[in-house]
């Protein structure tokens, strides 16, 4: 029941938003997305923490002849993803400023996106999962295409084709799994798991790579990442927030939910390859971030680095080691990354709206003009560089720990992120917020109430996840344990 409610609220709101008068569009979208958040929080509070099973399951026949069911449910991992989605969406909607007149369609697309994302996180049927996966691409495509920067058409098309191509490989993998289910075939998740595990190791290896193409492009993992910096930079702020804050988690979630359990032999063959790629991505993107002059691009590269570490933490898992820290680290880091990156992109948005530039060299002295803004920026920066007692630390520590248990040398390489992260983030903070003001920043105004309403909840989360991570970890722990025991 709860699952359906959380899924339906944004879906219905998205449709309703189309009929709302233009001037009430934002209010309506904020209100309905808050409603979804309330539903998610209530579910979260009541969520049984000692149980790794799916809760609130709905399993209705849909296309019976093909063994496709409308099968949804929430376990601890899904719960946290749903919570992240419903927490960030109202803030993303709220981040639209009054001066940027956005049509109701814009809000409808965001709400539709929210619904699709939640659908991805709660689907327990392979076909349904694929449907939601592709549905999520449509609204973001239009958001980027219609409201993006000047090169949006070319960049968005590349993004669309790239991720769509990846998804097709996933579809092929799902269909092959489906064809190996017994009897009259089904897309049920457990049946697909079982079918996958029965396959001969070589085929599992191929399917692993097919899934990896879809999920790896979405995250993105090096070297499948080249669509990302352009897309993040060209997309409107809300689009970037949706992409980086939530959408890339689809890829990571897909790995945890669909890829690892279904083709466990795959990781034995190609695990090292993808682990290396992930770690290379961490270092590669971090080094590129150091000299970026566009702050939006800089954060885009930092996101590749952070996601690389998350992927590495997951791929460092090997059956039998019974170490769930890497996966738990990946999950908590998905929350932290979502919070930090949405906050940072909002900071960029504020800067760009006030100064008409994102060039690091034209900025400076914002702390003089806008102390509250600078403090918020600093706290988000600290979260991004994983200072203990901020959100970034818990995940990064658990991830590096998990990688270390598998391959110490890779943990050291991946651990370079704590040095390089400080290099590029502090450089950015210094050049933007400290020093003397420039021509562009001399009239910079501090945060408006609307901007505070977006940033304060994010800042609270930065500290809350950092100080009380167990609130979240304990929800996903049994589900992770169950997932791993199935290998």
């Amino acid at each position, binding site marked *: 029941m709860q699952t359906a409610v959380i899924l339906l609220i944004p879906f219905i709101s998205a449709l309703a938003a189309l009929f709302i008068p233009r001037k009430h569009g934002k209010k309506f979208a904020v209100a309905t997305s808050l409603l979804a958040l309330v539903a998610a929080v209530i579910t979260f509070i009541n969520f049984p923490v000692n149980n790794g099973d799916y809760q609130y399951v709905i399993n209705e026949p849909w296309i019976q002849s093909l063994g496709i069911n409308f099968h949804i449910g929430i376990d601890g991992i899904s719960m946290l993803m749903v919570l992240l989605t419903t927490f960030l969406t109202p803030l993303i909607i709220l981040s639209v400023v009054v001066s940027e007149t956005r049509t109701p369609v814009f809000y409808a697309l965001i709400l539709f996106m929210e619904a699709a994302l939640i659908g991805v996180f709660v689907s327990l049927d392979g076909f349904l999962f694929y449907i939601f996966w592709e549905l999520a691409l449509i609204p973001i495509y239009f958001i980027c295409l219609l409201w993006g920067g000047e090169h949006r058409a070319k960049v968005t098309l590349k993004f669309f084709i790239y991720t769509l191509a990846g998804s097709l490989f996933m579809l092929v993998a799902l269909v092959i799994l489906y064809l190996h289910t017994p009897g009259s075939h089904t897309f049920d998740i457990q049946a697909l798991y079982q079918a996958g595990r029965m396959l001969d190791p070589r085929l599992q290896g191929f399917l692993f790579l097919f899934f990896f193409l879809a999920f790896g492009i979405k995250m993105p993992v090096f070297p499948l990442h080249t669509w990302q910096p352009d897309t993040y930079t060209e997309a409107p702020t809300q689009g970037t927030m949706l992409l980086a804050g939530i959408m890339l988690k689809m890829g990571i979630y897909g790995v945890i939910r669909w890829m690892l359990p279904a083709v466990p032999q795959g990781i034995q063959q190609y695990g090292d390859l993808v682990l290396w790629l992930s770690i290379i991505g961490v270092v590669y993107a971090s080094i590129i971030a*150091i000299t970026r002059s566009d702050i939006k691009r800089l954060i885009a590269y930092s996101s590749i680095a952070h996601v690389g570490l998350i992927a590495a933490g997951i791929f460092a898992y090997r059956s039998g080691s019974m170490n769930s820290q890497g996966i738990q680290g990946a999950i908590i880091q998905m929350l932290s990354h979502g919070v930090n990156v949405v906050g940072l992109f909002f900071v960029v948005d504020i800067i760009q709206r006030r100064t008409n530039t994102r060039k690091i060299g034209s900025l400076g002295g914002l702390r003089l003009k806008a102390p509250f803004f600078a403090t918020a920026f600093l706290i988000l920066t600290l979260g991004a560089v994983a*200072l203990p007692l901020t959100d970034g630390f818990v995940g990064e*520590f658990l991830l590096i*720990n998990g990688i270390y248990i598998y391959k110490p040398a890779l943990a*050291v390489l991946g651990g*370079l992120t704590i*040095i390089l992260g400080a290099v590029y983030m502090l450089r950015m903070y*210094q050049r933007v*917020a400290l020093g003397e003001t420039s021509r562009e920043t001399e009239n910079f105004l501090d945060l408006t109430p609307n901007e505070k309403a977006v940033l304060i909840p994010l800042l609270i989360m930065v500290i809350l996840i950092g100080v009380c991570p167990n609130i979240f970890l304990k929800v996903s722990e049994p589900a992770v344990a169950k997932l791993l025991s199935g290998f």
Partner: protein
Amino acid sequence: MTQIAYLIPLFPLVGFLILGLLNKRLSKSVAGIIGCGALLASFCIALGIFMNMNGQPVEIMVAPWISAGSFSANFAFLLDPLSSIFLLIITGVGFLIHVYSVGYMHDDENHNIYFSYLNLFVFFMLMLVMGSSYILMFVGWEGVGLCSYLLIGFWFKNKAYNDAAKKAFIMNRIGDLGFLIGMILIFKTFGTTDYLKVFAGVNGFDSTSGVLTAITLLLFVGAMGKSAQIPLYTWLPDAMAGPTPVSALIHAATMVTAGIYMVARSGVLYALSPVSMTVVAITGLITALFAATIALTQNDIKKVLAYSTVSQLGYMFLGLGVGAFSASVFHVMTHAFFKALLFLAAGSVIHGLSGEQDIRKMGGLKKSMPVTYMTFLLATLAIAGVPPFSGFFSKDEILGAAYSASPVYWVIGVVTAMMTAFYMFRLLFLVFFGEFRGDHSIHAHESPKVMTIPLMILAVLSTIGGFIGIPKSLGGGNAIEKFLEPVFKNAESQPSLAGGSEAPEIVLMVITVALAAVSIWYAYKKYIQNKEVPAAEGTKLPALQNTLYHKYYVDEIYSAIITKPLDKISGFLESIVESKFIDNIVNKIGALVEWIGGWLRQLQTGNVDFYLFAMVVGIVLMLFFKMM
């Protein structure tokens, strides 16, 4: 008393929150009272705990923090003689420096933020020494790094200051990666990072264990960063960009001694790893000597003190490396007194001269700043190792232990001590004696009472602080060693630390003191009798002196081999690898698909028969595939 120990870090944390959130809504005097009051309250509790310390470690669980899989960490504190001494130093010296800051920072527009940072620093420093596990130490460890960053760059309009702050943070992070990996290895080896459990678990290891060597070396990388040892020391002299009380508190008395605390805390692990002990001792020794040579030629009053701090920290590591754990902790304490005093007195001079830091433009301040002069003199005597001032006892104990380990250590240590005596008296003479050489429009004045009273208290401590560690050879009871014995007895009883010759203590002591006296005499002759003044900027110096003056060009070397290449690689990756290579391949694949698509389009002939044929072939292939 121990039940309320959690209040010790809580007071400064609350102070930080109040000051940080209310900021300018509080008047400066209220902010000062909150900032200082938080420290005083913590100090009182720390004192109570110290008084009641019976040698037994007490663990206090506050709340769970992280649990994931087999890993768990709690917010929990460990009180034992070692942490209780550090608590006293941090809250006691910290309180005096807070009070002093009320005067020093009085006219700063960001006065309240300053106090909030200072309180936050103390909170993290207390976490560092009170935490009951390595991961909690790491929380404090990185937290103090943040506060150091914020306070070095406190005057954030100045680019050079911001650069110094960033450099400090990044260099510390290099060390922190070592610490982090070391901590993970501890977890992997012992299944926990709690001190008591880890130390109980070492019984299964002997001194040939490679794991313990790896752990201790990795942790020591962290110490090199935090405690400014070669090769990660260059941030500390630059850190002098911060307000002078910050230099006293963070970059002299407390934070930079975190590395010493960490090694002392992990004494059992280090004692079981002779390789690491040797690395610690030699790193400390070389750093002590190296930094002292640089201090000989510096002309910025704070830079001299900064290199002196690096050098003294080197001494402490030497002590640790030769197994004299309690002597090193003793030196941490006396150093906290006299070095905090030196910085605060230097701050008083800078304050009195409206910001002047160049000793070539000082001189003759004895008359106009009598309290500052007297207190600076006492601290100089203490650091120079003149008996019976505090530094004499603690340094002497380290040198004695160094002699037992190897006479070579002792010789280098004594040479360093001579240099220390020389550069400190050079500083004293150039600042307070002779004629005023600065801008005569500045009228040097003594600082207000709120600044001089902390100086006087620290001067008393610098003078008599050594008496708690009078060695047996001088008829003392060495109270501090006895107090710390329960902490170190396991480590110090390790067979790898036994052996070495018994040092002829009295003889060594006499030699050291005599050589220090020679140095002082030489400085007197050079700067008082011959009235020498260091050459002005731009003067051609002899090669050796020039190298020292430019700090062996280490900053330039680091820039050339690390910073600049990294920027180059960054640009190369973005402009060549990223766009010309990876993205190009992606685009080519896209183009290829388009081309194939164009070719396949020709199959769309509109001929229904052909379509049927293709369908049948497809179905046959699918069936074939399935049957396989």
